[in-house]
């Protein structure tokens, strides 16, 4: 790819990191926890975005960043104090900058004037009128001659050949900054014909020469047709560290070169340099490396994926090996048995370490939430405080990417429906400001993420009413509080009297739940009226691996994802009831669930009938439950997920495959697919109304 395109991508990646650092810093400033270093970091973030943005010509972005940066500069120099109002403006500016970056990334600048308000607020803070946008061109204040606008002089007015006489006498400072008169003259020589005469009058006897003093002066005659600015430009770096005079001379024949002067010049220069190098070596203090800063490296995701796959293979092979050894009746206590146990132990460690490479702190997702909360609070006119806990908790990259949407929906719901208005809250004896808590932690090999609020809790009578209205439950159905709460996961369910323009259409909790279950997780609600609600998500640490229950069905072995399993039970014949066309229902604690002969469904031979085997009760988001009759449960284990669709095609009812310890392929069942197919047109209402005929 074009190198500039590649750097542009780098730029946007860097912007993401810088915007994050900026937001963190601004929040710290808001909480009064910011020190100078943090304020500086915020300044640098905006400064860097401006710098990079300028290189790619993102004018609007640069113009806005410049105004923002000016205010931040005042803040870090102490000229501006971070009062509450000022901080609010800075936060808004941060959001606006993020919008500019997003717009630049998408190739479409923001609509004209969108940032005017924030810009003027920033201008007010810095005491400068807004619209100060133009990037200041190179200024050369403090120089001996008039400032040059280099961009303008790109095509200088060419003049007929002129002769300039340049008197140039460097000060010691010029050398101290590693400027070299020889190089300046070399550059002059590129402009035209140059003759140099060196004035040695100030040079003392050699033994009195001090290495850091300046003794030489030159008179340079330059015959050129370039404009004066170009001549001045050669000296731009050293102006102020020398005596400089550039005068136009009437064209005259060139002066005779003074060869003596030239030689002395060369010799003197040599003498000049040598002593400097011979100067006593001073100890340079060793660079103090910040040992507290973590070292990181950047790795291609492909390489990591390959590593993860290889380790997955290793795990399978090791399991197979262990199995074969067992089958050979080699005792576990033998040296082989011990060796294998050791191997298994190491494999588990290896797998954990490799999985950990792909993990990232949830911070990257959580960090988007403060802005979301700010916007929602503004839109709903509610006062909201967001508390974030456990943002360092690490989750697999693949899971993190898909968490964003469900979390956003849940926070929207919490603020939109959960929290009351400030007036309502005060009336209820609560603080005006509602609190939404977002937390993450590791628990028992899974990740638990919770979104809770201290709002009004789930309105159970209302939810129940709505469910009856929609035919989801029958009017007489007897439901526990928990079951009522879970009704909100039904498709199309929304108790808001009008669809709020925030939560919008089609982003109900059913979508959220589906997203979580797709990730192999579960979502559970807890709620107390008037006190608040809590949603708990449990997620697997990674998507490549699945917790499954291995079952035997006839002559085959299948795997059921644990995330979908409610319970397993041994059915009694009398609990099985025929229903409709060749179907059966299973009575599970007085609620009726369709019973499926898994062997028949999947074409396995020799499956036992339902009453002789085991029933696994599975659940699919909002669609309902199914009772799968299998022969036996073989165990529970973590399996590595293998696809087969790329080599074959989709199969109804089958999600993926895995390789068991015996080396054989076992199919992983697609519970959602099975439930939809088997429940078919049956509605929860029909099921809840079923009464067995006779006993």
């Amino acid at each position, binding site marked *: 790819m074009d190198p500039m395109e590649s750097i542009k991508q780098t730029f946007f990646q860097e912007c993401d990191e810088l915007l994050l650092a900026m937001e963190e810093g601004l929040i710290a400033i808001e909480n009064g926890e910011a020190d100078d270093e943090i304020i500086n970091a915020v300044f640098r973030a905006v400064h860097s975005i401006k710098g990079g943005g300028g290189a790619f010509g993102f004018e609007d972005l640069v113009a806005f960043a410049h105004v923002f940066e000016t205010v931040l500069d005042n803040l870090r120099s102490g000229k501006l104090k971070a009062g509450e109002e000022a901080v609010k403006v800075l936060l808004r500016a941060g959001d606006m900058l993020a919008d500019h970056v997003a717009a630049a990334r998408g190739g479409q600048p923001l609509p004209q004037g969108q940032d005017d308000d924030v810009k003027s607020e920033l201008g007010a803070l810095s005491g400068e009128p807004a619209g100060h946008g133009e990037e200041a061109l190179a200024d050369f204040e403090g120089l001996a001659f008039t400032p040059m606008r280099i961009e303008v002089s790109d095509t200088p007015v060419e003049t007929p050949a002129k002769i300039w006489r340049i008197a140039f006498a460097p000060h010691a400072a010029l050398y101290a900054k590693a400027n070299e008169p020889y190089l300046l003259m070399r550059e002059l020589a590129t402009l035209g014909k140059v003759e140099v005469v060196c004035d040695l009058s100030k040079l003392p006897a050699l033994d009195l020469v001090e290495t850091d003093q300046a003794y030489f002066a030159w008179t340079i005659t330059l015959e050129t047709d370039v404009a004066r600015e170009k001549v001045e430009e050669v000296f731009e770096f050293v102006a102020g560290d020398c005596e400089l005079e550039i005068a136009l001379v009437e064209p005259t024949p060139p002066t005779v070169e003074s060869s003596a002067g030239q030689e002395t010049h060369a010799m003197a220069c040599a003498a000049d340099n040598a002593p400097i190098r011979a100067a006593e070596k001073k100890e340079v203090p060793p660079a103090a490396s910040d040992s507290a800063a973590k070292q990181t490296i950047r790795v291609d995701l492909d390489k990591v994926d390959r590593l993860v796959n290889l380790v997955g293979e290793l795990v399978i092979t090791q399991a197979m090996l262990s199995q074969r050894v067992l089958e050979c009746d080699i005792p576990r206590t033998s040296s082989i048995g011990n060796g294998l146990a050791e191997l298994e132990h190491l494999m588990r460690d290896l797998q954990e370490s490799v999985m950990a490479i792909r993990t990232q702190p949830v911070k990257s997702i959580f960090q988007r939430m403060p802005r979301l909360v700010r916007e929602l609070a503004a839109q709903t006119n509610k006062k909201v405080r967001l508390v974030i806990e456990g943002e360092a908790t690490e989750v697999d990259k693949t899971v993190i990417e898909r968490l964003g949407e469900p979390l956003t929906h849940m926070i929207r719901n919490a603020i939109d429906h959960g929290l009351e208005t400030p007036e309502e809250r005060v009336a209820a004896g609560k603080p005006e400001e509602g609190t939404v808590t977002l937390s993450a932690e590791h628990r028992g090999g899974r990740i638990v993420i919770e979104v809770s609020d201290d709002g009004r809790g789930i309105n159970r009578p209302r939810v129940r009413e709505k469910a009856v209205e929609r035919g989801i439950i029958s009017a007489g159905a007897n439901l526990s509080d928990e079951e009522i709460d879970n009704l909100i996961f039904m498709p199309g369910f929304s108790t808001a009297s009008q669809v709020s323009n925030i939560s919008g259409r089609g982003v109900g909790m059913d979508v959220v739940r589906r997203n979580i279950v797709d990730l192999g997780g579960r979502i559970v609600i807890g709620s107390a009226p008037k006190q608040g609600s809590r949603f708990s998500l449990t997620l697997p640490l990674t998507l490549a691996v699945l917790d499954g229950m291995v079952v035997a069905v006839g002559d085959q072995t299948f795997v059921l994802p644990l995330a979908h399993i409610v319970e397993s039970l041994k059915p009694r014949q009398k609990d099985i009831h025929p229903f409709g066309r060749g179907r059966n229902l299973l009575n599970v604690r007085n609620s009726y669930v369709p019973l499926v002969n898994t062997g028949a469904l999947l*074409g396995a031979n020799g499956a036992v009938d339902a009453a002789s085997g085991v029933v696994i009760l599975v659940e699919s988001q909002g669609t309902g439950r199914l009772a799968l009759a299998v022969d036996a449960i073989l165990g529970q284990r973590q399996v590595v997920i293998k696809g*087969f669709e*790329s*080599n*074959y095609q989709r*199969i*109804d009812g089958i999600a993926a495959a895995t*390789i068991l310890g015996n*080396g054989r*392929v076992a199919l992983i069942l697609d519970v959602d697919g099975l439930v939809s197919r088997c429940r078919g047109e049956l509605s929860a209402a029909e099921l809840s109304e079923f009464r067995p005929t006779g006993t």
Partner: protein
Amino acid sequence: MTMSEKQEQTNQNRRQFITFRSGEQEFGADIMVIREIRGWTETTPLPHSPDYVRGVINLRGVVLPVIDLKARLGRGRTDANVKHVIVVVEASHRTIGLLVDAVSDILAVTSAEIQPTPELARDELAAFVEGIAVLDERMVTILSMDRLTASLVSAPMAQAA
């Protein structure tokens, strides 16, 4: 081989084929698509799949579908045992295994020696056949693995039980 001989070979456009037997027939497939040859192992059946899809096996961590060539050509089901062979083929962006009776040898055949399929033999076979190679007294049916593998996408599925 001399330069001129080599030139001659290239000119004649020889291709190399692995030949194998299935039922009473001998078939050939371009060596470029053959990945490996392995013995038969029990497959895990795939629900709702056509009868010629025997199932899947574990090929060093890859889940490989195995197609019974005899059944695919409409000639009945292979009674597979350890003596049978699975030819692993990569074509049309898929890797699959082909169940055959045995592998014979490698042939080098020029394009000139491959004759088009006779009109009479219009059956299941025809869709996947590139042509027939006649060498000495052998008749080898040259199969197009690309077409065979690609046909899996549109394979009719048995209805749900």
